[in-house]
């Protein structure tokens, strides 16, 4: 019961406990590649362990448990079942589901699956070659195992927040949960690597993904500056992430242009590109010899940036970016959400329309990838709470209608 046949993962079934973006974002990718992802939710909490279920932004005019836009986006293409794991009968059903699944995925706090009786060793008893991928902030071992995390915390502890900012100001950080997206990418990668290994050797395994460690790999050059050259990042003038330290470029930054909150990014990679930019600026200062060479531009970078700012502030960001790009200089307006989603034809295939059983059609994010033989597909919105109980417990696990009805009435599913 996947979106479409003939996809890369159409023989794969995932028993999925993930939620939020860090986990759900991973299994969304697997579903788009054709895996049958069966998301397990708690009927007692009405699936609200996932804090994105039933909260704004809303899909259209709909409101309520099924109308959360973020939830719909992150869970598109998956199936949904309910299991009240406080009940022994639900645990038995979960054992049966695991037995017919290739992988189990979750992003609970560390230890939750063990307490439920479904830690890796338990899962292996059910299916020896199961792939199990857990994803949380600090990982399954170590002194901070019990510490809690979410995107902004993972970003703070890993160094991502610190490395995003301007000198003499607090960290700007990432204005969103970049590491929930990226933790999801690493989780999808981990599931696929483990499945590929199993496909080739028959061997399952457990992957312990600590989101903060994944984040800690994303500033490798700055880390090596400290470990190899003993030059810590915490030093005068740093960080300045609108400048470029590796490679050195100048000018390199984001400058104001005409209009409200309008900005342009410009990156001058070499002296030739500076010559092009200086001629487009066409002012006395820009033609001065002192700016002709990278070394002197770097020496007086503050001054150069001030001069540039006095010029850009009277420019139109779209027109200037186009002029610079046409002349071979990297430049782009800082696009606002509406501009990049509605007005940039280069992104149009990313936004796809899905059908949600209760709230109807809506737009969600697809994948920024084309695959010639096994294209991804996202056509169905997030599943309603327990929407696929009949298919999973009936068709897949063989329960009769009467039994499903009883289990529903007694709050087991």
């Amino acid at each position, binding site marked *: 019961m996947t979106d479409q046949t003939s996809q*890369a993962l159409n023989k794969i079934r995932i028993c999925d406990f993930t939620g939020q973006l860090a986990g759900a974002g991973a299994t969304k*990718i697997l579903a788009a590649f054709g895996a049958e992802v069966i998301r397990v939710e708690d009927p007692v909490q009405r699936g609200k362990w996932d804090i994105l279920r039933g909260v704004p*932004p809303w899909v259209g005019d709909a409101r309520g448990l099924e109308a959360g*836009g973020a939830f719909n986006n992150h869970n598109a293409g998956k199936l949904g079942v309910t299991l009240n794991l406080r009940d022994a009968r639900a645990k038995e059903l979960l054992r049966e589901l695991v037995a017919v699944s290739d992988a189990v995925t979750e992003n609970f706090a560390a230890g939750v699956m063990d307490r439920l009786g479904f830690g890796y060793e338990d899962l292996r008893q059910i299916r020896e070659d199961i792939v199990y991928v857990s994803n949380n902030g600090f*990982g399954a*071992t*170590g002194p901070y195992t019990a510490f*809690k995390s979410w995107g902004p915390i993972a*970003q703070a*502890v890993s160094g991502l927040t*610190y490395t*995003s900012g*301007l000198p003499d100001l*607090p*960290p*700007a*950080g990432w204005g*969103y949960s*970049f590491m*929930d997206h990226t933790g999801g990418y*690493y989780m999808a990668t981990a599931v696929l690597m*483990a*499945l590929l290994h199993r496909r080739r050797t028959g*061997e399952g*395994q457990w992957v312990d*993904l*600590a989101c903060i*460690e994944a984040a*800690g790999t*994303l*500033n490798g*050059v*700055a*880390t*090596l500056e400290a*470990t*190899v050259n003993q030059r810590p*990042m*915490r030093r005068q003038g740093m*960080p300045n*992430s609108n400048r470029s330290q590796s490679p*050195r470029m100048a000018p390199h*930054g984001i400058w104001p242009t005409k209009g409200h909150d309008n*900005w342009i*990014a*410009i990156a001058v990679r070499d002296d030739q590109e500076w010559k092009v930019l200086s001629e487009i600026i066409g002012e006395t200062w820009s033609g001065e010899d002192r700016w002709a060479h990278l070394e002197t531009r770097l020496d007086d970078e503050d001054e150069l940036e001030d001069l540039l700012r006095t010029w850009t502030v009277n420019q139109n960001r779209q027109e200037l970016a186009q002029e610079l790009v046409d002349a071979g200089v*990297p430049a782009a307006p*800082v*696009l606002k*959400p509406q501009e990049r*989603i509605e007005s940039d034809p*280069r*992104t149009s295939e*990313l936004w796809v329309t899905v059908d949600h059983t209760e709230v109807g059609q809506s737009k969600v*994010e697809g994948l920024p990838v*084309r*695959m*010639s*033989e*096994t294209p991804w597909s996202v056509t169905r919105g997030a599943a309603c709470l327990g929407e696929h109980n009949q298919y999973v417990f009936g068709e897949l696990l063989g329960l009769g209608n009467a039994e499903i009805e009883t289990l529903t009435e007694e709050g087991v599913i």
Partner: protein
Amino acid sequence: MTATSPTSVLSGYRVIELASERCALAGKLMADMGAEVIVVEPPEGCKTRSWEPFADDVADLENSLHWWHYNTSKKSVALDLETDSGARQFRSLIMTADVVIEAEPLGRLEALALGWEQFGELNSQLIWTSITHHGRDGSDPPATDLTLLAEGGPAWSCGYDDHEIPPVRGGGNQAFHTACHYAVPSILAALMWREDSGKGQLIDVSLLNSSNATTEFATLWWLNGERQVERQTGRHALPTMTEWTQIQCADGRWFNTGVPPRNKREFQALRSWIEELDLTDECSAYEILKLGDQFERIGLLELDEDPLAGEVFQAGRDAIEFLGQHLKAYDLFVGLQQRGMACGIVYSPDEMIVDPHFVERGFPEEVFYESRNATHIHPGAPYRFSKTPWSTIRAPRLGEHQALLEDLA
């Protein structure tokens, strides 16, 4: 392909990567998990070899820390694709490959008759991965990490409450990373499918769309309600301005206060910590915290309907700010987390890697450099596999594995 080793996920797969800062991470992620990744450089070396910083600040093709980080566990061959012999050797190499990863300027390889169009039919099992600005059929504007994050969406959400200050590029070349983060699972899915079908395919990853798919609420609020998020210092960009979540501690370090205390247990924990520190007289929030005993949980409903709930909620935030004025960021981090409250110290990347938790988990990776007779610490594995661990060896010297080409001939 060589025989599959049980100890490494991707062993037996040969990946040819055309050296570029745009796709280097994709190759690294595969190499550190056991694939044989051969990075093809021009005779003068990949341009990133000349990028600062250099080890010991000595400029040298073998000293770039950028090269060191992004090319661990790879092999290097130097080839001039513009010459007949170079092109011939490249063809031989591609015929032995399972996967190609490239981010060349559009049309360059086709003009040399060395692109997917040439190899797709000759090697039907080949998985060819192009990382392009916005698709192989698009244009190829001059672009860097900065301009991609600007037009791709992330920069709009990053910055400060004061909108006179420019939007900020998140550090670390994340536009390139994000495209690689989509490339690798796509390649793995294609390898899975090839196991059954025997067929390769073409994968086309858009740098621009990768960033567009990685902006969380900026996109979600537009797609669902057409509301524009506004950037805010150190916290989520949202359609409305929210309260601070970042404070400066007694040692000057910044701290993310995370999820504010909301329930009786948390208010009690804050109170008793302030008592333990003997700071009750100095803490103006202390008395109000006592009223927190009345609240099992303060949710949006309580904040809306009960003025006292609002006061207690604010006292919880004030108490954390107060503690920050008296404690080092690390002590506040560990102390609050041990009391069940989610929060985080703002580390620099090099501080994170020496934190005792990550050290105990083995995150810092020791990499040996025989020419220096030294071991240097690299960031380690993003995930730990119980059966097939990550492993890292130093990045290759230019043309270090040239002998591979002789084997092909």
